[in-house]
């Protein structure tokens, strides 16, 4: 049963990365793709109806981790204490950047929130990338099953790691590039005129960097975390996700060049899903690998009792079907393009 929940949790986190990822990407690129006030509004409008719902995937995934893997939730969240608090503060700034900017027509006010939105989006992409890096690399778990990571130590991947070291910084950079690319494709698909053109150009440049960094990070991962190769050879079907990720990257490029904007965005989503799935396979059967492999926390050891896990299925499945229904409705009824000409001032 815990294997099922492991994959459901990975799916929720992957969906979170795909959905909130594009509005992070939009935030990272905000100051570069939108030059005038009208363009800034156009960019924020394109994520206005959905960003909050996208973020709920993080909350829902956190809750699912809480009841399905209480030990992972407890050990992981307290061990990453400082990084998580910083993430919380950044989430506050980002939400305010989106929601408060339009409350007041004043250049100082709007410029402040524009920069807050962009900076918080960038730093959040760094933090979440670093978090993923930490999960894959493993954390300095002690005999008593807990750990506490400082923000950084010596940037080497040794026994006493910090949240930032050369490997997690590399993953963080890859995450920033991948989400910026993802966001550029969203803007390319969902806006028009100057913003869409700039986003299209940026997506082209970012794509090359994403390919390079994906390759470097993958090679680094194999070196840093030997469990990845073992786990993949034990589960050869996992290679499918390598295919998904590679096809997604190629698709993102080809579709964009052919002007099929929506398909390009969806291909990028496929790439992100593929990468998250590979990370999940890479650490399995652990949910929190230790720097000392013998001390790693496995899915089985972290999981709640079987009865509770079975009971949760009865509400989780209908609940998530409902949630997916809201999302389909919301995205379906959103305008296909947020036009620069619609300033919608009343």
């Amino acid at each position, binding site marked *: 049963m815990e294997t099922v929940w492991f994959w459901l949790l990975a799916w929720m986190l992957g969906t979170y990365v795909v959905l909130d990822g594009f509005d992070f990407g939009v935030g990272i690129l905000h100051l570069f793709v939108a030059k005038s006030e009208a363009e800034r509004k156009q960019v924020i409008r394109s994520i206005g109806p959905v960003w909050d719902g996208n973020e709920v995937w993080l909350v829902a995934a956190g809750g699912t981790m809480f009841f399905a893997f209480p030990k992972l939730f407890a050990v992981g969240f307290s061990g990453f*204490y400082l990084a998580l608090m910083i993430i919380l503060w950044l989430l506050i700034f980002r939400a305010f950047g989106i929601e408060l900017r339009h409350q007041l027509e004043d250049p100082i006010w709007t410029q402040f929130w524009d920069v807050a939105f962009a900076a918080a989006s960038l730093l959040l992409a760094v933090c979440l990338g670093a978090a993923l890096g930490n999960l894959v690399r493993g954390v300095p778990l002690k005999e008593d099953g807990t750990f506490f990571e400082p923000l950084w130590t010596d940037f080497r991947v040794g026994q006493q790691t910090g949240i930032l070291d050369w490997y997690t910084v590399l993953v963080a950079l890859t995450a920033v590039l991948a989400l910026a690319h993802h966001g550029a494709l969203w803007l390319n698909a969902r806006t028009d005129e100057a913003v869409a053109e700039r986003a299209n150009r940026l997506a082209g440049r970012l794509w090359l960097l994403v390919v390079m960094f994906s390759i470097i990070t993958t090679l680094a991962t194999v070196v840093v975390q030997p469990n990845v190769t073992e786990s993949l050879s034990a589960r050869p079907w996992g290679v499918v996700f390598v295919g998904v990720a590679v096809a997604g990257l190629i698709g993102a490029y080809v579709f964009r060049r052919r002007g099929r904007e929506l398909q390009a965005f969806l291909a990028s989503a496929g790439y992100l899903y593929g990468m998250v799935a590979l990370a999940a396979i890479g650490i399995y059967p652990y949910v929190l690998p230790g720097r000392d492999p013998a001390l790693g926390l496995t899915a089985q050891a972290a999981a709640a009792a079987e009865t509770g896990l079975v009971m949760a299925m009865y509400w989780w499945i209908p*609940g998530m079907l409902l949630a997916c229904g809201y999302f389909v409705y919301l995205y379906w009824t959103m305008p296909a393009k947020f036009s620069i000409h*619609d300033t919608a001032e009343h």
Partner: protein
Amino acid sequence: MEALTLHRFHFAFTITYHYIFAQLTMGLALLIFVLKTMALRGDPVANQAVRFWAKILGVTFVMGVVTGIPMEFQFGTNWSRFSEAAGGVIGQTLAMEGVFAFFLESSFLYLLLYGERRLGQRGHWVVALLVFIGTWLSGFFIVCTNAWMQHPVGYEIAPDGTITLASLSALFTNPWAIPQYLHTMVGSVITGSFMMAAIGAFYVLRGEHVATARRFMSLAVVVGLIASVLAAMPTGDIQAGLIYKHQPVTFAAMEGHFHTEDGAGLVLIGQPNVPEMRLDNPIVLPRVLSFLTHQRWDATIVGLSDYDRHLWPDNIELLYYSYHVMAGLGTFFIGIMMLSAFYLWRRTLHERRWLLWILMLALPFPFIANTAGWMTAELGRQPWLIYGLMRTADGHSTQVSAGNVLFTLLGFMGLYVMLSALYFFLMTRIIAQGPESDSTGHQFEISAVPTQ
């Protein structure tokens, strides 16, 4: 300060601040739904009121979201031993809040704020209903979680000491949960009503937007009166009975009842003097506590001194004051709303300037009463984190040092001061613009966007 105290204060501070916005959101969501229903029956003033209050709800909701996300995280970051032991139970209700409530609210709040034209009146009414359901479901799952910590049911203890879920439905049919939920919700409706009445009174006193403002007041006074009465009877009364039955030590400490007595009196005012085990300067209604608890004037109420000291709540003074502040303010709410309702019925409420002043200045008090109520529940549960099962001192994250907790606590305090300033600034702007203004918040209006 030691780490445990700081962890407690960290959670207490962030949740108290969060609940300021959560209670207003839940209260207003109901009132907006009522107003929208009136609008649907062809009442144009009501629709204007819906748009105005939706603006206030929108900003309040954002505050609730950004201060709410830290709450879920803090179970893991600051209370890891508790989360590890009880996550299999309370993780379920918290996850349900995300899945059933947050997805609903976040998807439809935007449409409530900006989708009126595109959805049409009926569609907008449905959206108002969905937002109302979403916010109230959110409260339900949180109260179920808290009720389980107050009165654990439906669990088993595994050989390794973790607490596992034995029955999901037991969490929802917990005898503690429904009264606590109703009491909490009624409290949030009081907050929403007093907010609406205060702003209505403000406009009438200034002679601005009088027609709309009188509508605010009439709805707020009717709903506020019903809610204020329900807060005392039956929901508050049942709640007190549950505490007496299941947490008798808490009950004695709340009431400042130090020694066992037949025909115990109800303390109206007085300062608990714990070292001397007595109340200083008390004003007491003789025998009333016995009557309220047992419906018999001479019934015995066991005092604190008859309980083992390690079972006592660890801050009896604060618990006592919180409870009395809540109950005192609750009585004040009933009085003020009855008076307002009387003049509303006589159709002269808008002429009673002294009463309008009171309604306007009463704005902060429901927030204080709700906060004091939650402090009563949470301080009363001490020294237990899960009543009778796990002590608070055994729940916090030991690997997070006191210094780190102090750092993030100060960080949250600083950040929240900034949020308060922003919220206050935006509120005063919306109020200054008035309900007839249609200028803010419509930048995201979808209706004007060609959908083809």
